[in-house]
Every structure is written in C-alpha cells, then in structure tokens.
C-alpha cells in the first residue's frame, strides 16, 4: 500500500504533544511544588530545625505510611474506582498485628504463682512473621470484600467503601475489645519504622556514643525500603503488564474495554486486592510508627490524605489517569504540610484549612492543563 501524499494542513497542530503536556513536565511540576512547599517551611521554621536529619527522617517515616496506601489507591482511582475504607483497613491491620504478637496463655507451675507466658518469647522471629502474614492478609481480605460487593452486587464503590469504612473500623475495635493492645515491646516488626538515619548521623558526628543497633544496618527505616520496593513494583505493574494497561482502559472507557474483551470484573477484583495488600503493608508501618501499640482508633481520616495524595499526584477521580511517582510526591507534600504546620505551631484549624486549599488548588491547576487538550 502506497503512502498517501499528506498535505501539511491535515496534521492538526494539537497532535504534537507539547512539552507542557508531556509526562515529564508533569512530574517535574509536581516535584517543583514539593520543593517549594519544603523550602517554604525550611525558611520559616526557626533555626533550620526543619532541615535537621531527625525532622527529614520523620517526614519520610510519616509519608511512607500514606505513600504505601496511596500505591493501591492510585490503581483503584486509575480504574475509576475509589476506596474510602483504607484508613479503617490500616487500623484493622494494626490491631490484628498487635493481637497476634500479644498471644499468650497462663501457666500454673507446680509451685509459685501463675505466670503469663507470651508466645513471642518462644518464637521471637516466627511470630512477627505470622503477624505480618495475618496483617497483610486481613488487608487484602477486607479489600476483596469491598470488591466482591462492588462487582457482584453492581454497587457504586463510593457507597460500598463508605459502608465498609464503618464495618472495618468496628471490627478493629471489636478485636481489640475497644482498648489499645499493648503487645510485648521490642519485636522487630514494631521497629521497622524506628528512626535509623538520625542516630547514624549522631554517631558519625560524635554526638552520641553508640552506633544504632538492630535494624540500624538499613540506614533508612526498613519500612521506607519496603515502600520503595512496593512503589517500583506498582509502577512496573501499571506500565508493563497487561493487567496495568487494562486498569487504564477500564478507567478511561469501561464500555470500550468490555467490548474489546478486557475482563472488566476480574481486573477490578485484582485492583482492589492489590489495594488491600498495600493498605496492609501501610498498616504494618503504622503499627511500628505508633510505637507498636494496637490502637483501633489510629489512622482516622487517612483515606482522605491518601486520596488527596493521589489527586495531587495527577490522579483523576474520573479514571484513566494517575501515576505512582506522582502519588508518592503527593504523599510527601501532604506530610510536609502537616508537619510544617505543626512546627510552625499553627493551630490545628489553620492546618486543616491550608491542606484543604492546597488540594483544591492542585486539582484546579490540573484541570486548567487539561483544558488545553480540548
């Protein structure tokens, strides 16, 4: 077949992807926003405290929880869904992990008083591993419940997850008997988010005497490495697997995807299962982050921070858009705003107003950018 002659005017000028709309500028813009927000607080908070190693590490530790949950949320939002139950799933995971670590029985020896015997003391490595499996498993299971309801009963994700947000929170409280669970301290699982970088720097500069022990060899907290691996995994799934591309296709035009033979139901189930898996991981981090306490009231309104991170990162609630790198940057921005606001000693209400404003501004900017496409 011969190539037809093509008059110059048939090529629409909009076909050339302008630099303004390319993905790189997009990510660059978000990174720039991150730098601006950071510099803002770095300059305002007194005596450069904001740039101290300890504070930087705290930012990374806190944002790792948001970002890990945001990985799954990014996939869900790309597929034009939403998951409001993420915060409750994190709390459920935290409680389940604590409950497993806290397994104990009472032994009455031949002489002397009865003693509590903790399983953890017999299985110091295995039991935390079991706790990890149980925690991540309960996360994936909760999310599968969400999806079975959404796909099976053809309900709107917003409503289903609004309901399960209450159900999972209730379950968490039920398992914990409405109290905080205090499992034995010092298990490795409760230390995956412990600061490591700041102690190292302290030791290197001679401010403290001992090098960090335990998980100190990780340089950064283990949870942050887990996030990094999970993020790379999620990004690869989205870009390089059929599953990932089907998520985009479903979010972009579900009817077309169905017509073209994309297994819509199966893809959605996988998306939510993955989201639950990531929420479970985030739950593990949260457990360590709150010092290894099984607190059923933790992570309240995290779903909003996570959704905000995805949206700031370029996700569209209409589906078809979103990026892992963007969401991670979004999580960092949210955290910096949170922590910066605290350190500036802004009242809580001011912080809330500022974060709300930033989210709306980010989405507005995105819409303006999209308008150029039409």
């Amino acid at each position, binding site marked *: *077949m011969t*190539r*037809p002659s*093509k008059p110059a005017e*048939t*090529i*629409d000028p*909009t*076909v050339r*992807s302008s630099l303004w*709309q390319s993905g790189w500028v997009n990510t660059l813009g978000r990174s720039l926003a991150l730098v601006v927000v950071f510099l803002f607080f770095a300059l305002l908070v007194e005596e450069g405290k904001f740039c101290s190693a300890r504070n930087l590490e705290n930012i990374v530790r806190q944002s790792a929880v948001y970002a890990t949950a945001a990985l799954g949320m990014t996939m869900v939002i790309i597929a034009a869904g939403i998951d409001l139950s993420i915060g409750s799933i994190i709390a459920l995971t935290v409680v389940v992990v604590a409950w497993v670590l806290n397994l104990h029985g009472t032994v009455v020896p031949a002489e002397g008083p009865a003693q509590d015997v903790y399983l953890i003391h017999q299985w110091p490595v295995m039991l935390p591993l079991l706790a990890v499996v149980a925690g991540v498993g309960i996360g994936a299971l909760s999310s599968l419940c969400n999806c079975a309801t959404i796909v099976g009963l053809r309900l709107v994700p917003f409503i289903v997850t609004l309901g399960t947000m209450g159900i999972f929170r209730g379950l968490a409280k039920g398992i914990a008997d409405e109290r905080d669970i205090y499992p034995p301290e010092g298990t490795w699982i409760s230390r995956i988010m412990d600061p490591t970088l700041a102690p190292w720097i302290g030791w290197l500069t001679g401010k403290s005497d001992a090098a960090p022990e335990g998980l100190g060899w990780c340089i950064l907290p283990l949870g942050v490495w887990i996030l990094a691996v999970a993020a790379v995994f999620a990004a690869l799934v989205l870009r*390089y*697997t*059929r*599953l*990932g*591309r089907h998520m*985009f*296709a479903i*979010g*972009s*035009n579900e*009817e*077309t*995807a*169905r*017509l*073209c*033979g*994309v297994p819509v139901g199966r893809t959605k189930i996988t998306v939510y299962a993955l989201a639950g898996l990531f929420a479970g991981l985030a739950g593990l981090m949260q457990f360590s982050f709150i010092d290894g306490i099984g607190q059923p009231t933790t992570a309240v309104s995290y779903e909003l921070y996570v959704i905000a991170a995805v949206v700031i990162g370029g996700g569209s609630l209409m*589906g*078809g*858009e979103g990026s892992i790198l963007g969401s991670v940057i979004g999580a960092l921005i949210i955290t910096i705003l949170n922590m910066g606001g605290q350190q500036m000693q802004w009242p809580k209400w001011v912080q809330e107003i500022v974060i709300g404003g930033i989210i709306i501004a980010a989405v507005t900017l995105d819409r303006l950018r999209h308008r150029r*496409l039409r």
Partner: protein
Amino acid sequence: MSSTPAAAADAPPTRLKMQGIHKRFGATYALRGVDLAVRAGEVHALIGENGAGKSTLMKVLSGAHAPDQGRMWLDDRPHRPRNPLQARNRGIAMIYQELSLAPHLSVMENIMLGIETTAGPLVRWAEMRRRATRALAEVGVDEIPVETTVRELPIAQQQLVEIARAVALQSRVLVLDEPTSSLTQQDICKLFALIRRLKAAGLAIVYISHFLEEVQEIADRYTVLRDGQTVGGGVTEEATFDQIVAMMVGRKIEDLYPRSPRRPGEVLLSVRNLAGAEKPTSATLELRRGEVFGIAGLVGAGRTELVRTVFGLDAVTSGAVRMAAYRGPISAARNWRHGAGMVSEDRKREGLAVGLSVADNVTLPRLDTVGPWRFVSPSRQHRASRPWIERLSIRCLSPGQPVHALSGGNQQKVAIARLLHADVDVLLLDEPTRGIDVGSKVEIYRRIDELAVGDAAAARPPKAVLLVSSYLPELLGVCDRIAVMCRGRLTEARPAAAWDEHQLMLAATGQEQNT
C-alpha cells in the same frame, strides 16, 4: 437481492446475509422482517429515516440485541452472536458516531486493546508498536504517531484509529454509522479513499448515512428501510435521489393536525447569524406572535443545539438573539423571566425532574408564584398545578404524584404545562412528541394550535411556538413556516404550504441545490 445465475457466477461471494429479522421492544416493533445481503468487497449503503430501524438492525448484527426471529449468516456459516464481544471476535467491527476509544490511552494501545501481545504477564511493547504501526499503514494513515494519547487527536483521526483497530482485528464486516457527520470536507475525501482501499482488500462495508450524495459517491449497492421493514434496494448507480427518497418517505399524511386561522403579530424572537461552539454554524430566523415555526432536519444536524443556544444553555460564539425587546446576554433563567420557555428533547434526563411530583415540575421555573417571599407552599403548588392538569388532561392521581409514575405522553404534557404555568410568550419545543402515543400527540398538536391562536375572550393573547421535529408530517401539519437545518446551517424559512415531505427530506440531506 436476487441475481441471475450468470451474474452470480461473477459476483463476489455474499459475506453477510440477514434474513427475516424481527425485533420487538415491549409493544413496539422495531424490526418487522428485514433482509440484507452484503458481498465481500462492496460498500453497501443502509438508508432510512430516523427510527426506520437501521440502528436496531446493526445492534442485532453486532450482538447487542438478539433477534426475535430471523437468521444471519457470515461467510455462509450461521451467525448468532451472544454478545458484542463475540460478534467482534468473529469479525464484525462497528464504528459508531460516538467513537468507542479509551481517550487516556495511546493510539497503539487503543488499536491493540484486548489483543495485547504479551510475554507472561508483561506487555511486549515493541511488538505492540510494530503491529499497531502495521495496522495504521494498512489503513494508509501512518502519519498518526502511535505514541500519542488518543484524546489529543482531532476527531477525524480518532475515527481512523478505530478503523485501524478493526483492521488489526482482521475484521470481515465493517459497519460505519454516519461516519461523516462530524468531519470536514477534506477529511471526508480521505475517509472515502480509505473506504475504497478497504473495499479493494476484500472487506464487506455497511455504510449508514442520511446523505444521499455520499451514498451515491461511495456505495455500490443500497438497501432502504422504512418502519422496520426492507422496502427496496439495488445498485446505487441505477437509482435516482427521487426514487430513494420516495422509498424512504412513502407514507400518507394522516389528518391529525388541527389548524385554526392564525394572524402573525409582532416579532417575539429574532435570531441573527447565530453560531455555537460546534453547531449551529449559521442560523437566522424570526418568530412572530401567533405563529408556529417549524425546524426540520436530521438527527445531528444541529437543531437541538440551535434551540439550546437560543435558550442560553449552550454558549453563543457569534451572532445575536433577541427575545422580545431584550437583547443582553442570555441565560436560561433570564429567558424564563423574559417570557420564553423550553421543552427539551430528552425528557428523562433534562426535560423533567422525574423523581419530583407533577406540582413541583409544573411550578419549578416560577416558584415565586407559589408562596410569600422566598417560601414555597406545597398546597399552593398543588393548587397552581391543578388547572393545568385539567386543561391538558394529564392523567395522574394527584399533583403530588411523582412524574416517573406517569406514561410518556403524560410526562410530556407536564413539561408543556410548565411553560403554560410560567405564562411564557415564546415556546421552544424540541421534539415534543418523541416516543409518545398517537392520542397524546394529537392532544399536543391541539394545544399548540390553541396557543398560537390565543383566546381573546379569556384574555389570552396568542403565543409564538418554535417546533423542532424529525417527524415530517407533523411539521407540515402543524407549522405555518418551516426552515430546514442541514449540517449546522439553517435554510431560509418558507411557508409550510410551499414544502412537501420529499422536498424537506432533500433539503435535510443537503440535496436541495441539485433538484
């Protein structure tokens, strides 16, 4: 579609055959025995008025609807698709007016959607790119970059991407539903060149279009549908426009249309060179008190857009609209205040708040009349809507009954009662009789006539009515003057007596100059 034995020897094999297809939705017959045979390597035009059953027939072909009766063969093997996906996998590719692409994905991914090349769970991007590029080259549009996101492409190129997808799937039958309706002349030429290449490659192409000129240019044979039946067909070259139009229209005007003598008064609505975002491109009209002005045209010609633009629902890009003496910026709220009201063609989604009661719907634009200050009194709403329920004989249990519980005809009367309650002078009615039974239609015609005449005794001055309709007998029967919309342009208005169905159809299909 019989051919002599001698011709049959030369003729290419029949690719697709549909025989005696019936399809009923509830009590209405959409298809009542349609036959269609399309050969490999031909372009076969499917022609018919709006509602003749073309879309339903194609939905049967593509597996979206199962036929109640009748059989289909694809390359001499029975074709009974259970769903669109199965039909697609067997080689039936549909290209609808509203394209089915995933706008956020790249050209290459759209072409390969559902048939991705993979190694294990991983997508093989290089192979995807190679195949997509080859499909684009086969349709001769390799200037489209495969990496571009589809929504960044102009509509004409998006359409080509969809055709490339059909090619990549190795389709055997390609259905193009009104493919040129949103294309420029230049794009149409390119599309036709492409269709000829695909035809030469042996594809069977079903071409649905209202534009007989295009049919004449591109199609080898044609089949005409009317009221769900095949009424004729043949070789395109041997048919004249007049013959085809006669087959399309072919029904008598029933005596349904009451018409009292009317005396047009002052101009109430004047539209000058109006253009909207896409359509209309140019429209000029004057609507006088005591007159019914009809707008004919095909679906997609821009009639609804014209009404919406006049009423302030769509943005005006150039031109002017003057409602009575008012000539400032227009908005729907201002229009209600200045004595204009509109009935939307889309009753369920736009025309009525179907979850609310009859009384709520009737009083909605003028809630100021049913309570002191800004309060709304439900009892006064009911009292205000009762006279309209009686006058229009709306069958409902009470003014408090939700609108979705009423029949289509009664719902439409509620929409009209709203204009009467607001006591507007200018009524813009977009397809007011679509999908309602004949009895309700006649009642609506009678009401339109009453409004245009007015009633001096009851101190009701005549009103002005703008009526948009696809149903030609209705326009000819009810209107005083009629203008025709064709591809966004409104022709000059002529008295209804100067038109007949045939001429309206010719004008609507863009053929007027040729006759």
